[in-house]
């Protein structure tokens, strides 16, 4: 199947190094300490951050730093066919772990000992690149909550189809079977860009 036309246009009319339209809002969830909605094209993700607050499970409490927890889930209606098991499956657990490790590396956890920071991310519309949209939304939500961080983390996916490297894959390009990678970058505090995560699907 042709993903890049001879003129160099992708299925949705983008150039290979062109990203989808980005949209972000903060403060949507009034009850949460911080929240954000992030859209990358048709992928829409909402993140809510609670914390720093008292650790609920005292056995996990750390006396020198904050505990960061993350839960990724996809709404039943986020994909074309209604999803049976939105969270608890292996993919959600893996993505939750990846987001947690990424954000934990950036949060100044030593400033908030004996406390817990909860990051909840839910995919409302999935059209490829949900992992990246979740990291971007989580970064905004953490900043909205006023949690001290080393840096801003941004993320995007990339792949390789029809001998062309492509930026920001949508669902059709993602499921085409070519290699793809999601990269998280710490923007400002590194002299050269450094990556925090890079799983190859």
């Amino acid at each position, binding site marked *: 199947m042709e993903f890049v036309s001879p003129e160099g246009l992708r299925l949705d009319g983008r150039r290979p190094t062109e990203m989808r339209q980005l949209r972000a809002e903060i403060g949507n969830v009034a009850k949460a*300490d*911080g929240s954000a909605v992030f859209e990358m094209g048709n992928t829409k993700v909402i993140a809510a951050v609670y914390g720093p*607050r*008292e650790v609920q499970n005292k056995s996990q409490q750390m*006396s020198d730093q904050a505990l960061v927890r993350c839960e990724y889930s996809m709404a039943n209606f986020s994909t074309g066919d209604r999803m049976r098991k939105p969270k608890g499956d292996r993919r959600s657990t893996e993505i939750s772990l990846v987001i947690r490790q990424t954000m934990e590396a*950036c949060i*100044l956890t030593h400033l908030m000992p*004996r406390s817990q920071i909860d990051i909840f991310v839910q995919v409302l519309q999935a059209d490829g690149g949900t992992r990246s949209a979740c990291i971007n939304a989580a970064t905004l939500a953490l*900043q*909205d*909550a*006023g949690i*001290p*961080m*080393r*840096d*801003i983390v941004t993320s995007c996916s990339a792949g390789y189809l029809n001998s062309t490297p492509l930026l920001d894959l949508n669902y059709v390009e993602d499921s085409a079977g070519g290699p793809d990678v999601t990269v998280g970058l*710490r*923007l*400002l*505090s590194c*002299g050269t860009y450094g990556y925090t995560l890079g799983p190859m699907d």
Partner: protein
Amino acid sequence: MVVKEEEMVLVTPGEVLGKATEVKAGKGAYVAKHNGLVYASLTGLLRTLSPPPDSPDQRATVEVTGHKAHGPVPEPGSVVIARVTKVMTRMASADIMCVGAKSVREKFSGIIRQQDVRATEIDKVDMHLSFRPGDIVRASVVSFML
């Protein structure tokens, strides 16, 4: 401390605020050890505070004030107002509602031990005669619980 005129500069985490040799990192800023630069750690307005004239360290302090005020956190030595929830033979559990004059956003729980209720005859304290669930007490925080 004298505050310089506010320039309404908005900063985000990771922005360089200066060198550690020239400025001190206040609230909302941190020093990166590997290159000695001071970065912002919050999103908000940047303020530069001049140092007091008699201090040995004459570096200005940079701080970033976020848009959301965090609730206060009780620490050893702070005076808190709490509501008693459970009374047992040797201690009473209480939920802290205010730290100093500010109310907390998130509930903190603590305990009042039998030996901390009064200064004299501390072994003869009867917790059930001293407290009832629902009582409001003003207390001073002794320590964190492990």
